[in-house]
């Protein structure tokens, strides 16, 4: 049997598909078109509504493979890896891509080892090499200082994880539909030596920073904890989430889940405001895929200005109060348009 088709590992929460699944479909669609093969979404879970599965077709899938079992209700590494391996062995996809989420980055390396194949982490670009049909995988490395292009020439499937939010989903095609294949996973692939006891939802305001469309982040420039709180007000006005540099987290002004950069999270929001951030190599590595970046820093030579689309070289303590005031005023005009 020949290796054929492009697979994406779709992710969901309690049967509801996550944004990253649709992002992967766009990546997968481009690859499947170039390889002239089918795009298959693989989904493991307890149960799914048909309407939810149909969304996968509208966003690009030709076929959906679903494995349903109570053990898949929440993510557990072993049954997820075993089931995926079982499906890969059975159907032999040529390419398998997952999102570089906590789930994807856990499942993919174990499956790659078990299938004796190569895996490239956290890719920002995927393409097909015309002469060979090989998957060309591009990823930032060494703190985002270089871009490495990587191939898996002789092993199949070619596996990659893709940086979440590094692309937008396709526009949905309301008429598109496809085949749903329900797969039974044999019992020996469903064992788990881990048991989920409970789950504690993040209570932090604004929620998960990697999903945020707007991030206002602060660094050492805030000088002290009380000052850093200014950012929360700004975040509220912009309907954004607060992020922080490693320095700010180490000083206790923000929690580790809010840390952006090489030793924290990589983010790709629509807008990133860097306030009082000098822009270390590690921090810049975490924001390079942001769509728009604005920076405020009193040092005109700060590195952060090299990546900024709009920069104000001035003291944050002078700029932020004015910005707050103007945003406030703008919000009020927006709230009552009829009173113009």
């Amino acid at each position, binding site marked *: 049997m020949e290796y054929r088709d492009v697979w994406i590992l779709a992710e969901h929460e309690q049967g509801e598909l996550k944004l990253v699944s649709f992002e992967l479909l766009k990546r997968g669609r481009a690859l499947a078109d170039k390889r002239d093969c089918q795009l298959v979404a693989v989904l493991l879970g307890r149960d799914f509504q048909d309407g939810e599965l149909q969304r996968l077709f509208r966003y690009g899938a030709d076929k959906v493979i679903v494995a349903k079992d109570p053990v898949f209700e929440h*993510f557990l*590494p072993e049954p997820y890896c*075993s089931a995926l*391996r079982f499906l890969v062995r059975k159907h032999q996809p040529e390419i398998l891509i997952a999102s570089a989420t*906590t789930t994807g980055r*856990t499942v993919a*390396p*174990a499956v*790659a*080892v*078990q299938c004796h*194949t*190569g*895996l490239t*982490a*956290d890719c920002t670009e995927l393409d097909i090499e015309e002469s060979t049909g090989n998957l060309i995988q591009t990823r*930032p490395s*060494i703190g*985002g*200082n*270089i871009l490495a*292009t*990587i191939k*898996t*020439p002789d092993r199949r499937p070619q596996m990659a994880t893709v940086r979440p939010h590094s692309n937008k989903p396709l526009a949905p095609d309301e008429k598109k539909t496809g085949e749903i294949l329900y797969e039974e996973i044999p019992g020996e*692939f469903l064992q788990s*030596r*881990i*048991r*989920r*006891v*409970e*789950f504690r939802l*993040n209570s932090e305001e604004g929620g*998960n920073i990697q999903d945020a469309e707007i991030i206002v982040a602060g660094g050492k420039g805030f000088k002290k904890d009380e000052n850093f709180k200014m950012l929360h007000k700004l975040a509220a006005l*912009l309907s954004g989430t607060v992020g922080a540099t490693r320095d700010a987290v180490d000083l206790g002004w923000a929690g*580790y*889940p809010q840390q952006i950069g*090489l*030793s924290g999270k990589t983010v790709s929001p*629509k*807008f990133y405001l860097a306030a009082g951030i000098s822009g270390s*190599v*590690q921090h*810049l590595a975490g924001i390079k895929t942001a769509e728009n*970046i*604005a920076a405020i820093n009193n040092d*005109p030579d700060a590195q952060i*200005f*090299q*990546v900024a*689309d*709009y*920069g*104000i*070289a*001035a003291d944050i303590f002078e*700029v932020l109060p004015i*910005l707050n005031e103007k*945003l406030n005023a703008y919000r009020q005009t927006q709230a009552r348009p009829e009173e113009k």
Partner: protein
Amino acid sequence: MKKAHPPGIRGVAVLADTGGKRTANQGKTVRIIVPVKQVPETSNVKMDPVTGTMIRDGVEPIVNPLDLYAIEAAVQLREKYGGEVIALSMGPAKARLALKEAIAMGCDDGILLSHKAFAGADTWATSYVLAQAILQMGNFDLILCGERATDGDTGQVGPGIAAWLDIPFTTYISAIREVNSETLRIERMVETGYEILDIQRPCLLTVVKEINFPRLPTLDGKLRARDCDLKILGPEEINARPEYLGLKGSPTRVVKISTPQVARRGKIVAPKDERELESAVDGLMDFLKQKEIL
């Protein structure tokens, strides 16, 4: 004697067919293995603007900063339950400095896997060598890894080792709450919150920064590190398959390295007085409206 590689219980080629029942070092003490990596100090990385390569002169090799959290977690467990912590690294001869630092932080011993046959390994071949070495190290309760290395930034070696050994594993651990005779209760940090999990021993965990505050090496530790003789092992000592090693054994190939275009043609204003400050902020407001952020 070469080790055979029989298929594991679930039809996958793993290193040892343990039937999922690899014995933990039962009882109260814990035997912990911490794989560490030596990396360049990336905070000071300078790129050559012409060649696009890293300027390695004056770049200090350090212990991967995220491995320090795994070392600290291991040492804390040993302090609480007794036992032993062994650091393990694959790398060039100078990577022994990374192991010495691990010992200075409290690890009991270090093993260096160093041989020209290991060079150029990707994460698949690296996890193979580390797993194969661990197989020769006797029973253990826990393998603790950093979340990822700050140079390659993949986070693939930890889960890879667990897959080779066919032991339970999980990632992004922010707390080890309890060590029980057969299980560990742990907290896993995911995008939306924290999973509380029970995992069977022996197992592999990768830990995140949130788990602790790594200690600095002590004088006593530094003296111990200076005086200790590290074991250096090659492919034969760990019964490795030659065809799985180094660049030759790696499924992936780096075909091109380029320098990313980081510079944006942004507008930077430097206001000199209050009026200019005002208009600078107006400019930012216009930028937000134009980009449909407001």
